[in-house]
């Protein structure tokens, strides 16, 4: 029989779809920039844009971890509380004076933060995988735990870095810049590059996607689902720790309310960036774009003077929905 059998269409509609889905968030971002330009002349100044991007760094970095968790089919609602918890412990350590030398103390404190972040992530991972509890509930539970422990550590008050030397040494991590680019922006892009590398270029990243796409298939392929998922939570914990490293020098202090709702913002950034909540598709650069979008929406609200401050929440909600609608209609082309 002749082998004309499978003439495959040359340009499958499909890969165009894919591209559109990847590009859509960036188009939404561009539209927002235009909107911002008309809202306030100060919006397009480099000072303002640098500000906005710089302060999106917390959500952006956390959202990178969330991209992993979500791609593998999980969800982590505890990140905001975890940030507060890790930051509190880090500051308490810096204040404890265990290490006299400020530089050394700072380095040790940073290492500690990273370690605690990883452990918190591990705890989330184990509860959802070994404990087989829906991630939504499991991490809602640990959210309560981390938040509660933070409240307890701070005895309801704030925890503030006391040593001025350490703070002076540490401050440039948030407010400094390198060849004109603020450090947090560098951190965003470096972390994103690493995240993209791991997700797209390593076996582990491939497995993350596979687990989120079809658990059974992954299992039959000899991939340890639980291990892959648990590690995504650890990565999320590490990302939270990196966010802490940026956060502490900025405000120099935490309280029981630090990071409230950041989990929702991080998840929103991920989804606005084009990653599906059901798992199986992860878009690192989309996530970064999503984080920028969220921050810019807030910035435009604050800069524009025609919105009643009571309505800011409403307008913000509406803009997010419109941004998503724009994306969807772009994708349907």
């Amino acid at each position, binding site marked *: 029989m002749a082998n004309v059998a499978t003439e495959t269409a040359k340009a499958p509609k499909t890969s165009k779809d894919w591209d559109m889905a990847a590009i859509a968030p960036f188009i939404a971002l561009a539209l927002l920039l235009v909107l911002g330009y008309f809202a306030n002349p100060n919006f397009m100044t480099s000072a303002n844009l640098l500000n906005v991007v710089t302060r999106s760094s917390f959500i952006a970095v956390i959202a990178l971890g969330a991209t992993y968790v979500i791609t593998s089919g999980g969800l982590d609602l505890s990140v905001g509380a975890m940030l507060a918890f890790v930051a509190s412990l880090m500051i308490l350590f810096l204040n404890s004076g265990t290490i006299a030398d400020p530089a050394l103390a700072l380095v040790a404190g940073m290492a500690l933060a990273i370690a605690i972040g990883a452990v918190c992530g591990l705890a989330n991972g184990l509860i959802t995988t070994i404990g087989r509890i829906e991630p939504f509930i499991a991490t809602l539970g640990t959210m309560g735990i981390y938040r509660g422990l933070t409240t307890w550590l701070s005895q309801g008050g704030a925890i503030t870095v006391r040593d001025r030397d350490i703070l002076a040494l540490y401050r440039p991590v948030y407010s400094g810049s390198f060849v004109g680019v603020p450090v947090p922006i560098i951190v965003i892009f470096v972390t994103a590059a690493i995240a993209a590398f791991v997700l797209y270029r390593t076996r582990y990243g491939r497995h993350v996607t596979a687990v989120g796409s079809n658990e059974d298939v992954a299992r039959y392929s000899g991939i340890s689902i639980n291990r892959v998922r648990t590690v995504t939570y650890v990565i999320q914990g590490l990302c939270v720790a990196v966010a802490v490293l940026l956060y502490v020098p900025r405000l120099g202090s935490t309280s029981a309310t630090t990071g409230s709702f950041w989990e929702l913002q991080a998840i929103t950034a991920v989804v606005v960036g084009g990653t599906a909540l059901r798992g199986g598709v992860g878009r690192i650069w989309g996530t970064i774009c999503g984080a920028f979008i969220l921050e810019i929406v807030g910035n435009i609200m*604050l800069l524009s003077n025609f919105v009643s401050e009571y309505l800011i929440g409403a307008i913000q909600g509406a803009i997010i929905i419109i941004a998503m609608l724009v994306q969807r209609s772009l994708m349907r082309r």
Partner: protein
Amino acid sequence: QDKKVTIGVSIPAADHGWTAGVVFHAERVAKLLMKEHPGLNVIVKTSPDAASQANAVQDLAVQGLDALVILPSDPDPLVNAIQQVKDKGTFVALVDRAPSVNDSTIRDLYVAGNNPALGQVAGEYIKKTTPDAQVVIIRGLPIPIDQQRQDGFDKGIAGSKVKILDRQFGNWSRDDAFKVMQDFLTKHQKIDVVWCQDDDMAVGVLEAIAQAKRTDIKYVVGGAGSKDMVKKVMDGDKMIPVDVLYPPAMVATAMELTAGNFYDKVPVSGTYILDATLVTKDNAKNFYFPDSPF
């Protein structure tokens, strides 16, 4: 007199009664001041939490400020943001909530209600009226001002036989306060006095007591001076004999003083602490503003 001046006002979002009062007064005075001084521009921005308030301060600074009036939702985390503004030579007026370092390096003017005093006045009133009362306390949110009020309260009742049965967080929410009070009533057979340090929460507390039909509770002490509670005091409600003032209008005071710094001859600086006045049946009408949302 036509000097161009821009004042940025950063305050917490109106997420419960008291902050709503803050927003109300800030808006009101902003209009008044701008009418009074044609060259003056007052921009009021609200933020739901410390981190976004830091952003808001930055965004205000971008617009070019001569002065910043800020009521921080959480003071310590905002020190850096305020410091940055101050370092540019901007006039800074800090309202209500003080960071651990509160000196002229970070602000020019400090206008504050007196959180410790709010607790202390309530405590002293209870000590005086019912010296051996059994008290339950409904706290606000776990943040520093709440802690200051608690400490003030403990100081107020110090050395008396007033006994604290229980304290729990009511999150400055009526519904949570209702819940907590209901459980307090289940847990404690005899409660004399409830201190809930916020008038919003007092609404839930009163409802829970009414529903349980308990008669052992002699009275409830709230705080802040909402119009509803002040009205009750005025009307001689037995359950609400007094209220402790913590006026949201303090932000207006700060704004007026700041404007004065630019348009009056005398430069303004230093610390202004408002009293935590005890509102009683006699003086209540002085503190009753029926138009305020709070």
